């Protein structure tokens, strides 16, 4: 804002500002709004977004929410969390338990989502309360271990979680609600655009909430604890409480993503959807995009999901088309290199650009500071 004002003030003194520059400045300053409008209009212009593509973009939005949740812990507060998928899964399963026909609850979408988000946050608190006094790298292992415990439990408690089949059918949001002659449940079930807009609205709400949090007292306390826990405590910040709130916030947002995920798939899918791999992929997205940076996190998710759903299939079919790989060797298939490419990306980013692709200014300064 201030930068914008300064810019325009200078330009006013010199003369008229070229339109292109003004547009670019507006996009830089208000990228969230621009992106939101573009994404909101897109399904009306691109009919493909009403089909399978709409479903994929919805999933992308949900992963964005999940990554923003993880960013609270890893980005703002500097705590390594290797089990975010567990909270994603807890959110999804709680939501399913509260809505599927086989349980007596069968709550409405909003009630069920609210209850499961709160419950996920409570579970986060329960795990965080005893473990947050641990040193950073121990916390990484506790979250990792918790992720494994949750996955194994979901898989083995067949009577409650449906084992490998998962819980289904999760009813669509607004099932049985009729507004203005439109049966909302039916609309959600038939047209993927409804989910597209629901997920987009949720993502927009989370982005706005994160923006506000970043600048709030609590958000600044998170960053203070990350930069120097001792100094922060000396300033009267209770490090434990600040970390605990970050843990709870992360868990709650991940739980929200889980609710949307289960609702959009109308099943919880099998427990392997919530394993270590998922946690690591989300962590990679946050790190590649930029720790503590909202646009960075969103870009990171888009890149990683885009790699799997767009680039890899395209490259594979290209290799097939140009007949580079007549013997069908896995060495010459692009998707066979997926893990190595991700791994190399992580190593290179950490070496040459640890602040990520779109860094938060503060994080960049912190990471380039000379440590003794």
């Amino acid at each position, binding site marked *: 804002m201030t930068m914008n004002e300064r810019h325009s003030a200078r330009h006013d003194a010199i003369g008229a500002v070229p339109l292109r520059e003004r547009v670019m400045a507006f996009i830089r300053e208000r990228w969230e709004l621009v992106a939101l409008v573009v994404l909101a209009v897109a399904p009306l212009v691109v009919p493909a977004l009403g089909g399978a593509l709409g479903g994929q973009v919805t999933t992308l939005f949900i992963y964005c929410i999940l990554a923003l949740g993880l960013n609270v812990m890893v980005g703002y507060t*500097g705590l*390594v969390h290797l089990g975010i998928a567990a909270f994603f899964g807890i959110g999804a399963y709680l939501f399913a338990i509260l809505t599927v026909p086989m349980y007596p609850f069968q709550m409405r979408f909003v009630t069920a989502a609210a209850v499961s988000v709160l419950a996920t946050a409570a579970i986060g608190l329960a795990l965080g309360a*005893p*473990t947050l*006094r*641990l*040193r*950073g*790298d*121990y916390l*990484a*292992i*506790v979250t*990792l*271990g*918790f992720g*494994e*415990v949750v996955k*194994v*439990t979901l*898989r*083995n408690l067949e009577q409650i979680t449906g084992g490998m089949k998962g819980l289904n059918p999760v009813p669509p949001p607004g099932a049985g609600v009729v507004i203005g002659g439109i049966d909302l449940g039916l609309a959600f079930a038939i047209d993927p655009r409804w989910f597209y807009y629901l997920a987009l609205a949720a993502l927009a709400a989370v982005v706005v909430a994160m923006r506000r949090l970043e600048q709030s007292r609590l958000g600044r306390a998170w960053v203070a604890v990350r930069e120097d*826990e*001792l100094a922060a405590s000396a300033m009267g910040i209770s490090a434990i409480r600040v970390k605990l709130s970050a843990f709870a916030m992360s868990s709650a947002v991940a739980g929200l993503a889980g609710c949307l995920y289960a609702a959009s798939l109308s099943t919880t899918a099998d427990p392997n959807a919530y394993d*270590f791999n998922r946690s*690591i992929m989300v*962590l990679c997205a946050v*790190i590649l995009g930029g*720790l503590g940076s909202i646009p960075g996190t969103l870009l990171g998710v888009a890149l990683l999901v885009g790699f799997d759903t767009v680039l890899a299939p395209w490259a594979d079919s290209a290799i097939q088309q140009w007949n580079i790989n007549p013997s069908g060797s*896995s*060495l010459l298939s692009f998707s*066979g*290199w*997926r*893990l*190595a490419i*991700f*791994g*190399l*990306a*992580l*190593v290179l980013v*950490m*070496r040459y650009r*640890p602040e990520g692709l779109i860094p938060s200014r503060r994080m960049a300064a*912190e*990471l380039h500071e*000379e*440590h*003794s």
Partner: protein
Amino acid sequence: MQFFLQQCLIGITNGALVALVALGYTMVYGIIRLINFAHGDLIMLGACLALSLVSGFGLAGGGMVTTWFGVVLLVLLCGLFCGGLNVAVDRIVYRPLRNAPKLAPLVSAIGVSFIFMNVGLFWLGPADRSFPELLPPANLFAGEGLQFTAKDLLVLVVVVPLMICLSLLVKSTRLGKAMRAVSQDPIAAALVGIDVDRVIAFTFFVGGFLGGAASVIYGLYINTISFQMGFQNGLYAFTAAVLGGIGSIPGAVVGGLVIGLVRALSSAYVGERWTGAIVFAILIVILVFRPEGLLGRGTKEKV
């Protein structure tokens, strides 16, 4: 009772194997405070090499003497391979990050583990591969009722001498003294003329060598390897290292044995599918109530 003793025996042999891997974690952590996520996958690559060597040289058909000689040779070769690889990774990936914030090497280690896994995927293919049974399955305790085969003997024959060598190395040699000095305070160590980078590289080599030895024994003892084996086994071993007190060498051994026993007993009495959850639940409980581990010393966060 018989059944219980048998499970304990299985647990101890398994635990010795876990301990060997845990040593690799604990030594690297002790010296540069890095959780080396790639260690499990390094061992997977060692197992790949072992499998290639065994099938390449047709070791499966030999007699008793050839087999045992071959096994020792395998342990040495895979140990050198994993040790060398570990040193190379340290040189290329971790050393430039020595002064970076803690997150950087940790994330790089996760990246290296992905790269290793991809190499393993190309080496082994996506499916599980069976490792040839080199050792006769006959029971060595004739008539006793307890099962103790040549495979179990192999684990102890390889693991125990390696651990004795390691403790001698750390306790009684100049290099071991340098390692302990660097782990206490790298700057002070450098001030008194210790080449810190070389000591760290050597630590990576020793950790990798033990991992390579573990990979051969894993192949011969468990008989199935896959490109994904590194993750789970690495986690168990890391749990063992933390349980014993990370950074402490005897701690890793004790932790490994405890984890081995817990795994064997929980598989026998609770059910195999809960084993993972039980092991990690124990890890969480230990970290909460005794974060310094069973044998570790408490450390205070320094300014």
